[in-house]
């Protein structure tokens, strides 16, 4: 496998810190690493929380009005109902975000989707470079000890140099 002449390279920016948007960078990174690619993820702004030791992402149905609202339990007919959730409810009912988050986690699990923690672990095992944006880390007041071990620190120039010869670059 390693006798391939040129190793491909994936450069990702992870800028979102909600549970749903945590998936795309870790799915792409772990899969590219499994294909033998070199992978780097630059975590910036809200994406920084994906580096925290204690992962506690939530989803925000209010800002994603197209999000299907389905129940992860019960008979198929019940599970397939897409519950209408007006913004009045999703933005104003206390605890709605937590309930929606827990329902989405249950659905992911029952459908056979890996957790973010599992995917991140696989990325680390596969040697994916994880870079914290130093500027946003300081603006938001995150400390190094809040984050997992094995990450690097840098800024825009660090990402751009890594991405300059990448085969695929994506901003998530």
């Amino acid at each position, binding site marked *: 496998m390693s*006798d391939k002449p040129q190793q491909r390279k994936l450069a990702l920016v992870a800028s979102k810190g909600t549970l749903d948007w945590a998936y795309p960078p870790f799915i792409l990174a772990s*899969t590219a690493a*499994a294909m033998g690619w070199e992978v780097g993820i630059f975590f910036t702004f809200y994406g920084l929380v994906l580096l925290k030791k204690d992962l506690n992402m939530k989803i925000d149905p209010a800002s994603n009005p197209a999000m299907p609202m389905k129940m992860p339990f019960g008979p198929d007919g019940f599970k397939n109902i897409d519950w209408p959730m007006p913004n009045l409810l999703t933005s104003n009912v206390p605890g709605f975000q937590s309930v929606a988050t827990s329902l989405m986690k249950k659905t992911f699990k029952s*459908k056979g989707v890996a957790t973010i923690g599992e995917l991140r672990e696989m990325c680390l095992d596969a040697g994916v470079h994880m870079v914290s944006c130093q500027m946003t880390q300081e603006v938001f007041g995150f400390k190094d000890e809040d984050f997992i071990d094995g990450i690097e620190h840098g800024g825009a120039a660090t990402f751009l140099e890594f991405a300059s010869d990448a085969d695929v670059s994506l901003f998530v």
Partner: protein
Amino acid sequence: MNEVANDVAYDVELDCQGMLCPLPILKTKKVIDTMEIGKILKMLSTDAGSMNDMNAWTNQTGNELIYSTQNDGLYTYFVRKT
């Protein structure tokens, strides 16, 4: 179709039924890494995207997809480690 699939000799079997992207690919890679060159892996999946994904993964890694089949939502792959 299943009979044909059962006829292919394999060394290692991996059951990824009930898993969705990217788990079948990640598990396949993990198991292939533990195998000797030339050995054959049989992988089972119920993920409808796995047909394209396994083609892409073998293309990218150089491992050889010897045979794949689909029967009633069950996808079976035979991959030779290169």
